[in-house]
């Protein structure tokens, strides 16, 4: 199982967590109901203590093993210093203003792009969003450091950019409009429907 973009991952996450949430609420509700009953309820399953502990360990560690194998950007992130990107874009930000390359950035399907973002003053964020506002990816932009992220684009799209970290109210105008929002920051082209090349 591999997620080819954040939408697939977030949908999967939504379903799994919702099932879990209903499960834990139901268990405690059932538990509470039976605590008050005069006739003692028989346990549906007997949970051995060490079995439960083992389950928690497996869930805690297994979650990371699963995501490492199923989410492609994890290993790409860790190994990025050994990867040669198809293109690199250097972006600067200062006083709530981006210094950007010529827009829109056009990326071919399947290309791995390096974004290298530096801040001259405050901590910002660098986040790409689809037209329906769902997030493609983001990173923090720490001032005085190189903040680089490698991303492989597997789906066509038209992405906007904004700062994902609060850097003071000057990011907005008096009406509350985001001044760091860049419409149509980049386009991904050349993918087939469903995200294949």
């Amino acid at each position, binding site marked *: 199982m591999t997620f080819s973009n*954040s939408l697939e*991952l*977030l949908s999967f*996450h*939504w379903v799994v*967590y919702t099932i879990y*949430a209903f499960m*834990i*609420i139901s268990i*405690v509700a059932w*538990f*509470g109901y*039976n*605590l*008050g*009953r*005069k006739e003692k309820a028989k346990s549906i399953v007997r949970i051995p203590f060490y079995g*439960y*502990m083992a389950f*928690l360990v497996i869930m*805690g*560690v297994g*979650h*990371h093993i699963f*995501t*490492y194998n199923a*989410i492609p950007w*994890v290993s790409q*992130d860790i190994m990025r210093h050994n990867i040669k990107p198809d293109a690199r874009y250097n972006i600067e930000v200062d006083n709530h203003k981006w210094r950007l390359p010529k827009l829109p950035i056009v990326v071919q399907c399947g290309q791995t792009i390096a974004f290298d973002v530096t801040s001259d*003053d*405050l*901590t910002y964020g660098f*986040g790409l969003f*689809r037209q329906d*506002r*769902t*997030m493609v*990816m*983001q*990173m*923090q932009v*720490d*001032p*005085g*450091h*190189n*903040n680089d*992220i490698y991303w492989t684009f597997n789906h066509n799209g038209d992405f906007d950019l904004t700062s*994902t*970290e*609060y850097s*003071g*109210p*000057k990011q907005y*105008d*008096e*009406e*509350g*409009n*985001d001044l760091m929002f860049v419409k149509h920051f980049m386009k991904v082209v050349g993918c087939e429907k469903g995200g294949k090349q």
Partner: protein
Amino acid sequence: MSWKENLVSGTNFDPDSLNALQKVTLRAVVMAFLFYGLVAIEGMIMRMVETGKEVAPIPEMFFHPDHFFSIMTAHPIVGIFGSTYQLVFGAFTFLVPYLTKKPLYSIKLANWTWGLITAGTAMAWFAAFAWHYAPLYTLYWPLPVDTRQFSEVGGIVFIVGVALIMFGTFGFIYNIYATIFARVGVHKDKTTKELLISGFGVDGMLNLMNKLRGKPPYSKEPALALPVVAIFRGTVDTFLDAVVILGAGILVLIYLIADLGGLHWDMNAIDALLYKNWFWWGLDLVADGLVLIYVAGSWYLLATLITGQKLFMENVARAALMLELLVSWMVWSHHLLSDQPQPEMMKLISGEMVTAFELLTQGLALFITLVTLWKARPLKMTMELKYLLGGLVGFGLAVPAGIIQADMGLNRVLHNTQWIIGAHVHIAIIVGLYMTLYSAVYVLWPIVTNNTKLYSHKLSNLHFWLHLIGGIGMGAFMGMAGLDGMLRRHLYVHGEFNPLMIFAAICGTMLLAAWAIFLYNIVMSVGIKGLVGIFMPAKDPTPSYGIDEELEPADDPAFAK
């Protein structure tokens, strides 16, 4: 009794019958719930703003970024310090002497504690209100000293307010440890070493090891009761956290004062990433140390008080609290998974692997509490039991939500979204922590108020359901918006994430209504006279509860010796 009589005089509450320990406890609790109301109103204003100008029936000024983010800055300060800290500190100031059967070290210091925290919270709030000082609670360097955006005076008032809160916190810490280590009463013959061993849970660990080796237990009767051990352990994190926050405050203060004096120091002299690591190490001790350890201890106490039975697997629980303390010192990197210059090994080990241990420690606390309750059934479904179960649900939801996001893959699309603050933080605090604390309030109510009759059990039930459904609902809708890409520290003024934000606002309204009902119920129980009486000097200076007359240790020559 007429409604008016109830409002003025309460049911049968007599503030003059309270001793000094009871009064100082109630003062902190009253302030905590007043601040809770303020924080709920602030939260509702922000929730309304997020529904958009076209929908929200609130004044235009709240949509201005200066105003909106100053509310967002004050909100966690009032919520965490003004309300949660006060409630927890108030409860523990009562519980430690009560459980150890010793007098509190100093009533005076306890009064200073709630007074300083109240004054500090009010100052920090005022800085946000009057000067729109808005660097948020994260204080990411160099934003708090960015005088292009914020007034120096506002910043100084804010930081002095936070410093007062931290001084109050130190007062609480000193009082708790001085009480625990006081060799009076049942601890007359204990050595400091024995109390330390018990406080850190080493006796529990040695008991476990001896059991495995077939030897008799190291200690059949540990020096400190398990809830006191949790308070002892959690207070270590409270101290470290206060040191870090105060340190950051001093740094910010120095820069702001210099700026006011015309010296414009280079903000880049401080490494933003190093500062972030240091600050998050301290801040995270509130969430992953203090809260989780204090909560585990509170669950154990509540389970034993509600059932009247011994805690299931007590030695394991003692040992686990030690593990939780060590884990809490090593997990801060999960806040920096999206910081690319952060070393990958720190992300992997601290951010992912050690953080995953919290699933184990909190899961263990949940298991022990549930089994203790289960073994004692049938139990009457009292308010305290209901709230305890609500608290368990809250952490049952919020802790896995936190573990999920503490992952390099998911953090890339969840960091700084409403998922973090909704599904994880707000459910942990509002449902998990507060429902646990409400359970403690109901357990302690007859003890601290000398058996005052509660005005209405129907209202208590209504409060419970509104709080539970409102809390889970608000967190869930915020979380869903987060999955749809809604950021947490961002201003949306056109209802971009409706209808989810409308649903979240409806649930937020339920929370606010729940608080109003709770407050009404309490005021009608103690009466306005009683409420004022809580803040009047106590006629009975006894600094303990349930033991024969004791000298306050600070005034006791034997204690000084």
